[in-house]
């Protein structure tokens, strides 16, 4: 197991190197660079900059250099935790901008994942146990509709309802304003938790529905297997049979599905955060993409990939722990 983890970690590092290259190349591809978009910004605030100034800026950020040199320049900082500077953000180091938001993104994504699984699994079990009953029908119908509503529409809906019906005018943010700038502490964490249900609903609804349907299917598969009968033949209570024997096995494919689910959550997190104005990586990424701030955008997309890699690794480990049939040697 340990050697498996080490091997996977090494592989992950290799993958990250490739991902960093790809990220950088993709971010480099758009025509123009940050300086043109900066010039446009200056003009937007009514202060045109001269061509000489722009040239100087390009020189300063090494924008004229070949791509591979820019890449090396960028990557060489990683070991020091230096991810370059965000040109579009007054040269703030990318790490300073990204890290707090990375934490928030991670918190939001992972808690959405946990809540989605935490709800989808029992719902799926209930639906399967009541197969073809009214509860099953209700759950499945709701799930089918929920699957068809894109996360950004759910987010718009949440915003709309809170604005239109509850007169709220501010639901943005992931914690109360008074905690801004504070390091994470208990009160801030509590405030964060209070702010999360809305975004989590928007991000997780589709995944919840999908996972529930899959869990239901898995349960039905497992419930028809012989060992369930063995368990019943031992005289176990039905609840024990369902939870300890059936669900325990039916949950394994759900765990391995985290790898598919996580990208959806991250994508949902990006767009939902943009709509609800959450201080996560999403809005920053959109801004960076629009401003062609390559270090910033590159770092963020790389972090997204990192979340996926870590998520998949964790899912594999959990699966290995959960399913003794899987061996990693």
């Amino acid at each position, binding site marked *: 197991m340990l050697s498996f983890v080490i091997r996977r970690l090494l592989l992950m590092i290799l993958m990250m190197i490739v991902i960093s290259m790809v990220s950088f190349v993709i971010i480099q591809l758009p025509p123009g660079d940050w300086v043109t978009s900066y010039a446009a910004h200056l003009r937007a605030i009514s202060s045109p900059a001269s061509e000489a100034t722009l040239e100087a800026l390009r020189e300063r950020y090494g924008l004229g250099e070949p791509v591979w040199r820019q890449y090396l320049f960028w990557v060489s900082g990683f070991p020091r935790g230096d991810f370059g500077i965000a040109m579009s953000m007054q040269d703030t180091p990318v790490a300073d901008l990204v890290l707090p938001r990375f934490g928030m993104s991670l918190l939001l994504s992972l808690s959405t994942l946990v809540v989605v699984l935490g709800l989808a699994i029992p719902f799926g079990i209930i639906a399967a146990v009541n197969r073809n009953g009214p509860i099953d029908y209700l759950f499945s119908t709701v799930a089918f509709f929920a699957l068809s509503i894109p996360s950004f529409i759910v987010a718009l809906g949440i915003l709309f309802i809170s604005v239109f019906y509850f007169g709220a005018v501010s639901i943005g943010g992931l914690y109360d304003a008074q905690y801004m700038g504070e390091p994470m502490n208990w009160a801030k964490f509590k405030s964060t938790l209070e702010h999360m249900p809305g975004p989590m609903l928007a991000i997780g609804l589709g995944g919840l529905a999908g996972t529930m349907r899959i869990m239901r299917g898995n349960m039905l598969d497992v419930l028809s297997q012989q060992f369930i009968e*063995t*368990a019943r033949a031992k*005289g176990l209570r*039905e609840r024990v049979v369902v939870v300890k024997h059936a669900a325990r096995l039916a949950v394994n494919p759900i765990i391995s599905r985290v790898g598919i689910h996580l990208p959806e959550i991250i994508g949902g997190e990006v767009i939902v955060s943009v709509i609800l104005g959450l201080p996560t990586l999403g809005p920053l990424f959109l801004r960076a993409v629009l401003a062609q701030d390559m270090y910033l955008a590159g770092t963020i997309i790389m972090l997204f990939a990192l979340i996926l890699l870590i998520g998949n690794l964790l899912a594999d480990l959990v699966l290995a722990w959960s399913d003794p*049939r899987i061996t990693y040697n």
Partner: protein
Amino acid sequence: MTDGSAAATSRQLLRVDDLRVEFDTDYGKVCALDGVSLAVEEGRTLGIVGESGCGKSITARSIMRLLPQNASITGGSIHYSAPDTAPVDVTALKPNGATIRQLRGNAFAMIFQEPMTSLSPVYTVGAQIMEAILLHTDLNRREARERAIEMLDRVNIPAPEKRVDAYPHQLSGGMRQRVMIAMALSCSPRLLIADEPTTALDVTIEAQILDLLQQMQAAENASLIIITHDLGVVAETADHVAVMYVGRVVESGTVQDVLGDPQHPYTRALLHSVPRIGAKARLSPVGGTVPSLLEMPRGCKFAPRCSVAKSICHSSEPPSFALAGGRSVKCWLHDQGGGTGR
């Protein structure tokens, strides 16, 4: 249906009378068992034999009350009477109620056809054996574990102290069936039901498992119902045999009687399809196919396949005719008191 004279001392542990089981399907209600009657004597073995789909497993599951959700017992009774407890009618119990759960795994134990899938892949075999022990006895975990090891040892699993922590996928099919037997017997059941315990196994292992079953049965003085489509298995292990065809017991009696002198054309047909050492006759498979439960013939259900069917066979179903030696047979041929088929 009365005790065989040769075994006057034994008493009936379980009696199934006129059991009817129906399935609720998309195509309407379907009768899977129609008037099944059986008896199991204490310490003896009953073989239930028949082609697949004839209701053997459903009979066994009815006794365990492990029928699928869409099945229900609509008639008849299953009386269980152990010497030290009050008799129970299993059919009258609440499905999955406390009483039947108390019986399952404790008084009744069952071994399934597929050793590969009848153990949960995510728990160790020890844990799975202990589960029943902890449920039905007062032993604590440590004692239960010792008991599990002991049981594994008794079913001839080498290095049981190690194997107790093995996962099913680390064991071979034969081993798993041994584990199943150990599990089934771990609470000293009065009645052990083995549902085609060897079908999925190699022939050599089959013999070992059958041996083991008999040994264990003798040691525990339990009754055994062995369900099989293999007459050879019945001949080897059972005292009594019941031949089933589409939800009915068409012939029953002692093994010697039934196999030595089959009275029902179906039993005969089955016997002809079994290879025998030294037999010169060509094997003849049973002609035709088992009718679908949806398209059941009106009269004798075997009539369409029967080489000696008469017209009455096609129009009305034969009752059970009692023959000498506690035998019974469900065939119009015995109505006039004589086998024309011979």
